[in-house]
């Protein structure tokens, strides 16, 4: 039983060829149709995502969230979109008009582009290119460009400073991210998404969980979400790089960030949680996207949970965490996985999974030991330097008041 998307595509191909169009033209028309359907679907999911986000943040903060505008407040995002569309579009004096307008377009367009390589079902994927992982990394980096454009073109010192810090954070966290993306590529021997999903006989999260954790942390930092949201820093530099944006342009940044979070969740679900794999998916292909979205929303829920639980990390702590902890850890994990994988070429799957899992957990345990020792020395060091409010010659008895 072939899936509905391909059946419709074949039927359209038949109709168009019966009208006498050439092969190339048919491919072009079907591609345009596919792009429009995919982008519209993704944008509708984005609207739903705004509602989910607001309800979840409310629940985490022990309140209800929007519940007036429709049943359970479900129409709230649509009301928000209408409001943003009719707001006045103020451009600051001296702003670089073209780039000011272009940067929200780039910020959202790059996120939409990532959905071209997300596999929805065994036969439904936008473009099954064999360098999909590299494509994801490349397009994700263009989003960072959109942010520096926004900060620069705003003619605002604080937008520019916010943009600098955001870009420093984003390029820093790209390094552990691409290393953590390299590890499933290594295990699946291919960068193509469908191949990676098909190769996950146990899901990769049970084989290389540490790579999933590193990818999760780096992705949260890439997205610019708390605890790494120095770019927005609502209480620090007002709104960071998008201070001067009003109306729908701001809405595009905001919606783009949420959509990027879901995109990254879908990618983590594809690479580590088995994507569209699940019971009966071969017989009933329509279950593929259902499983994918369940897993993607699970990861998205984790991202939200982390967001509403941790305080903001300072920029120097954030960069130190990346360069001094995540990058060496990711490189070490890559070395261990590569050597173990080659050494266990002819071992049967169960032993392979157990040894890999054991190695991962061993690395985690070793890391925690090192971290605990480092934390202990740091605590001792900080305790020694604490300033005292009384002169050092004061005796303890005087302080307590017995003298």
């Amino acid at each position: 039983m072939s899936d509905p998307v391909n059946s419709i595509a074949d039927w359209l191909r038949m109709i168009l060829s019966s009208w006498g169009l050439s092969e190339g033209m048919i491919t072009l028309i079907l591609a345009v149709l596919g792009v429009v359907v995919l982008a519209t679907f993704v944008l509708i999911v984005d609207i739903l995502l705004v509602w989910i986000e607001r309800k979840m943040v409310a629940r985490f903060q022990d309140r209800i969230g929007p519940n007036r505008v429709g049943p359970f407040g479900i129409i709230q995002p649509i009301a928000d979109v209408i409001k943003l569309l009719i707001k006045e579009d103020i451009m600051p004096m001296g702003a670089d008009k073209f780039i000011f307008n272009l940067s929200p377009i780039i910020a959202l367009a790059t996120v939409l582009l990532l959905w071209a390589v997300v596999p929805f079902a065994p036969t439904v994927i936008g473009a099954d290119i064999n360098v999909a992982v590299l494509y994801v990394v490349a397009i994700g980096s263009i989003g960072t460009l959109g942010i520096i454009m926004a900060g620069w073109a705003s003619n605002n010192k604080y937008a520019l400073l916010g943009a600098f810090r955001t870009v420093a954070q984003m390029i820093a966290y790209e390094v552990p991210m691409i290393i953590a993306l390299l590890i499933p590529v290594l295990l699946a021997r291919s960068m193509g998404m469908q191949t990676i999903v098909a190769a996950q006989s146990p899901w990769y999260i049970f084989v290389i969980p540490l790579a999933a954790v590193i990818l999760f942390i780096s992705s949260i930092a890439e997205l610019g979400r708390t605890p790494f949201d120095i770019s927005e820093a609502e209480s620090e530099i007002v709104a960071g790089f998008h201070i001067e944006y009003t109306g729908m342009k701001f809405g595009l940044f905001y919606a783009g960030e949420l959509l990027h979070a879901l995109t990254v969740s879908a990618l983590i679900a594809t690479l580590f949680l088995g994507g569209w794999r699940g019971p009966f998916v071969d017989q009933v292909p329509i279950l593929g996207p259902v499983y994918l979205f369940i897993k993607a929303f699970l990861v998205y829920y984790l991202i939200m949970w982390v967001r509403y639980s941790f305080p903001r990390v300072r920029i120097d702590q954030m960069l130190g965490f990346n360069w001094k902890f995540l990058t060496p850890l990711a490189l070490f994990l890559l070395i261990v996985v590569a050597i173990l994988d080659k050494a266990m070429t002819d071992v049967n799957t169960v032993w392979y999974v157990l040894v890999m899992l054991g190695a991962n957990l061993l690395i985690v345990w070793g890391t925690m030991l090192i971290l605990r020792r480092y934390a202990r020395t740091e605590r001792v060091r900080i305790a020694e330097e604490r300033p005292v409010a009384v002169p050092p010659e004061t005796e303890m008895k005087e302080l307590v008041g017995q003298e």
Partner: protein
Amino acid sequence: MPDDWIFIGIFLLLAPVFPAAAILIPRLIAPRKPNALKSETYECGIETHGETWVQFKAQYYIFALVFLIFDIEIVFLYPWAVAFDNLPMFAVLEGVLFILILVAGLLYTWRKGVLEWV
């Protein structure tokens, strides 16, 4: 496979259309009454002084350099990972040696204090 790249090419052309439409619609229906006070640069209510394009801190450049080195390294490792089946253990260890040389570079920058945000 060329069909896939045509899809991506068309996506590249059409993806900016959606946010561009979202920006053009307000141009039709939103009010536009610019005045001097509204267009001022935002600085929490006080007036701005001096040039907007402040001096660039050199530390950003240094972080970008370190990022560049590791980015290129990992991009070189992607073909090594994809061709893993055809590599004997010796080639795997060579790749590991490559990574270790760059880890040594990272340790050097760490000890030299390059990775501090001052």
